[in-house]
């Protein structure tokens, strides 16, 4: 029974991480309908910028964190400006392939700079975050993951619901020509959503890096794990991303705990195929209605 609860808690924490990683992905999809295959690389870039600032530049943690956020924000802006903007209005296949190309580019560049090694951050989380409930110890990183996840999810919920930029983003996602004619600056919305998505990705990259260590291969593989999560939850639903993340996290941990760790790697993709066949728009996604 103790084993079960241990798995349950690990699963939920990992699920929160997946949800957090999926957030940025959903943001981009929600505003510009771009499927971002370079998401894992964005996670890795954030994690590595933080690593450089913390271990090599020896900056204090809060400043390093802030600089990373600013850096990834700017990076998202630049990516949108250089690569995505020329493709507005182009066929979907080209946009998808562009992000695949970007993913290969970023990955190659990061492997060139940092190699395939596993790095770790210096220990900085306060010990007070570690809990013990009924004989089960929750390591501080998991608590941090859940707390950061919750903070961001609430922030995003509020952002989309109340801020004007959030409302612009939703309007662009809903109906681009209508948003344009009502005076929404669509290109700025795209740029902003990429910037925010890169920022969130960078942050989730840091959290992932704290837990698993930082390696280019690991983090970009998690970028692909995002797909089952968002498909399960519905591609354009933030709440869905959270629930999808938690479900996938739980399933993975339980499968690796009770069945076999090797099958846990692909169980999420098996779920993905199943979901795609049964309910392609996910649990909470908006069904696309096509008019001819």
């Amino acid at each position, binding site marked *: 029974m103790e084993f079960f609860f241990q798995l349950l808690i690990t699963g939920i924490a990992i699920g929160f991480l997946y949800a957090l990683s999926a957030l940025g992905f959903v943001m981009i999809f929600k505003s510009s309908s771009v499927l971002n295959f370079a998401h894992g690389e964005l996670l890795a870039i954030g994690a590595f910028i933080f690593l450089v600032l913390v271990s090599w530049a020896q900056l204090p943690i809060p400043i390093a964190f802030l600089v990373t956020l600013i850096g990834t924000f700017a990076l998202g802006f630049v990516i949108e400006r250089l690569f995505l903007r020329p*493709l507005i209005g182009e066929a979907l296949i080209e946009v998808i392939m562009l992000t695949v*190309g970007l993913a290969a580019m970023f990955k*190659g560049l990061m492997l060139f700079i940092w190699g395939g090694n596993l790095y770790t951050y210096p220990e900085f989380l306060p010990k007070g975050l570690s809990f013990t409930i009924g004989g089960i110890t929750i390591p501080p990183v998991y608590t941090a993951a859940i707390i950061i996840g919750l903070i961001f999810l609430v922030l995003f919920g509020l952002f989309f619901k109340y801020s004007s930029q959030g409302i612009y983003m939703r309007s662009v996602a809903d109906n681009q020509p209508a948003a344009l004619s009502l005076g929404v600056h669509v290109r700025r919305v795209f740029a902003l959503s990429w910037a925010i998505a890169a920022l969130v990705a960078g942050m989730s990259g840091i959290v992932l890096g704290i837990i698993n260590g930082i390696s280019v291969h690991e983090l970009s593989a998690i970028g692909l794990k995002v797909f089952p999560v968002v498909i399960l939850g519905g591609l354009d639903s933030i709440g869905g991303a959270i629930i999808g993340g938690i479900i996938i996290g739980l399933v993975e941990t339980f499968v690796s705990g009770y069945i076999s760790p090797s099958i846990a790697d692909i169980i999420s993709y098996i779920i993905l195929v199943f979901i795609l066949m049964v309910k392609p728009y996910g649990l909470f996604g908006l069904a696309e209605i096509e008019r001819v």
Partner: protein
Amino acid sequence: MRHLIFHPCGNFNESYEQELNIFETDFGRVSLWVGLFFVFIIIPLLFKTISAINSPYFFYVLNMTGIAAIAVVGLNLLMGFTGQISLGHGAFFGVGAYSAAILATKVNFPFWISIPAAGVLTAFVGMIFGIPSGRLKHLYLTIATLAGQFIIEYVLIHWESLTQGTMGIILPTATIFGLKLDSDMSFYLVIYFCLAVLTWMAVNIVRTRYGRAFIAIRDNDRAAEGMGIPLFAYKLLSFSISSFYAGIAGGLWAYYMISITPEPFNLFLSIEYIAMVIIGGLGNVAGSIYGAVFITLLIEALRWGTETMMNIGSLSGIAITIAPLREFFFGLAIVLFILFEPKGLAEVWRIVRSNFRLWPFSY
């Protein structure tokens, strides 16, 4: 005898049949024969006579290009003509390689049966992963094929009774009509013969009703359905044809490599093939071959660059770190082509040609 057409200054087609002509001009027809002559007679003769270039390495590059070209021609039928993106072709290639290997070792099929059989088996597997295309369109389908890639990779590694897992399988020497294919040269001829036949097939598939239905689905699937094209059946057909090509390529690769393991058939291989299709030109059969040649040469150039740097002692440190830049250049090539020449090398070649033709009034 009819007039040969070499330099038309416009489009003078008078019937739909003429529009279906494979060659716009007789120049194309002539250059095809010249090209075939070059590939099958001149190059083998050159290799026989000049011993300086008669190294396994050159043949290796040539053969790899040929195998990649076969897979890419198939992928182009799916991506360029039917408009369905597959991120699983690396795995389909692997299925082809393993089918050929298993058929050759466990069932003792001869080379000339096991290669087509590998193609057919892969076509079945491709069809299974094409089933989601019945309900899903573009981006959802792309994700489904991505899942297919991972699932097939897993099966190849973990179905040990059949694939021997990471140990790999060692294939017997291929024999065809009693001749042993044990030299690079013989493989070269077989691979390029297959490439020629399969390219010829692809060009003609595109001209038939099936090919035109594929193009209709790509351009507007709703309209295609309205005109009476059963979408699901045709998408599945496209998936299986394209996987058939991947399977043949994989089978040839397995025989050529002699021993196979599951590692090479990863997502990166799928992306490599997609890069070839895009760089060559979506929806252009000849373009797939240009793309395969371009990328293979790019990889070899990068490898050659790093190796020469290794040999210059002082630069060897840099050379080791440069190796992962291969992936970077890949991505860069894809991104640059999409941004600046989305129709790929085939389009560049067309522009160059028409510049010559319209000279001195080219634009």
